[in-house]
């Protein structure tokens, strides 16, 4: 995918690089319509390339939360649309990268908070424990390794009696 003539990224390209990142940040996750894919930790790299005719191509490298996620094609299409509408960008190529592997650590604090407060979805503590995002209790029992999506498992808070979902590592 490397064209004949490329210019290495330099400081002059920095504003454009930022513009691409901002454009990617406007794309929400299809399953969390108010959380950006950047805040979920999907954006890994941005590379700009100016081709022979002067066409500026943005190569956006994303990593999936889970392989086989059914949202990948949709996310890639949304990213392409968003980045190609940014000023100074003629074309955008999206690559799903094989590595690094996504983990919940890549999520921002804000994304974690939104998932917990609005979606009742939490991350597991380092010691394996779970805290209920509704009532704050630690009495949360794992019920099923398999939830409605590949990236979540199902638990139940015995204190406030709510169904909690857990992002899988």
């Amino acid at each position, binding site marked *: 995918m490397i064209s004949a003539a490329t210019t290495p990224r330099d400081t002059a390209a920095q504003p454009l690089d930022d513009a691409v990142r901002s454009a990617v940040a406007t794309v929400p996750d*299809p*399953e*969390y*319509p108010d959380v950006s894919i950047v805040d979920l930790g999907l954006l890994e790299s941005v590379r700009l390339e100016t081709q022979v005719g002067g066409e500026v191509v943005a190569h956006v490298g994303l990593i999936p939360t889970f392989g*086989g*996620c*059914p*949202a990948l*094609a*949709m996310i890639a299409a949304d990213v392409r649309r968003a980045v190609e509408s940014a000023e100074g960008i003629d074309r955008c190529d999206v690559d799903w990268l094989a590595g690094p592997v996504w983990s919940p650590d890549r999520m921002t604090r804000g994304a974690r908070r939104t998932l917990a*407060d*609005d*979606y*009742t*979805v939490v991350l597991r503590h380092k010691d394996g424990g779970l805290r209920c995002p*509704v*009532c704050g209790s630690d009495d949360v029992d794992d*019920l*099923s390794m*398999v*939830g*409605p*999506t*590949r990236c979540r498992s*199902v638990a*139940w808070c015995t*204190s*406030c*009696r*709510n*169904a909690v*979902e857990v992002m899988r590592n």
Partner: protein
Amino acid sequence: MKTLAAPPAGGRTWSDLDEFQSFIDAGGMVEPDDEMPGEYRSEVFRFIEFHANSELMGGLTERDWIPHAPGLRLKQIFLAKTQDEIGHAHLLYMVGADMGIKTRTEMLEDLFDGRSRFHNVFHYQAVTWADQVAIAFLVDAAAFASQRAVFAECTYGPYKRVLKRIVAEEGFHMRHGEEMLLRIATGTPTQHEMFQAALDRWWWPAVQLFGPDSPPGDVDPLIRWKIKSERNEVLRHAYVQKYVPLLHGYGFEIPDAELRRDDDGQWQIGEIDWAPLKATMRNGGPDSARRIRTAADNWADTSWVREALA
């Protein structure tokens, strides 16, 4: 948006029904430990059970089409949708069972014995792949509109929290439905004919999914208790306004000879024959018996898993 945070531990109590109603009217959210009028508890439970059954029956249908889906990408979509629906059913059965009216096993056994209800659209047979496109594009959209209207109010906290995720995921399914429709609508003349035939089968069930007009005022307990935010006829009308022009735009015909545009530019559909909907609610639809039997066989065939896990 109402906060989804729970109240302090220990349930709230009410001196009378009026106080409970005022709490609901003021935007209050009911939690499992709160005192609930019997009618509120049973109406919420009935609604959740119906929703859970519908997710399960829908998921089983989609599962049947995974091998028939044309191409890997569509198989992947159908695999994911099946997991979604079964997962939603799981969450809803948990929340429903917690209300103390029926256990999850009782709900499932009632469903498999034909004593429960589920959405009318799962009482019909999908004949060709185009039917799956019609279901994904039309029926999922109708279900999405009605779920979103429940989520908008929904005074029962645990159900509202689960609905938040379900609605987001169903919105995602709708985009898949649009993608599937676009493919078939811009395909060969045969594909176009196949979809028209499917549309002829699914248009009326989709329109009927919203149910008959809601009774006037707040006679409907679902509206009085703010479990539903919108009346059936309002949701149906909005749906018709959106989908008639979309389908016309792709060159399809709506199977309704009385369909017309009124002076205000609103699409008005012909009179709805409610007999088919009523039949499905008695599990007497065209494909009800086979669907229920398949689901029951599936439950029986997997008993060894439950025994092994017990």
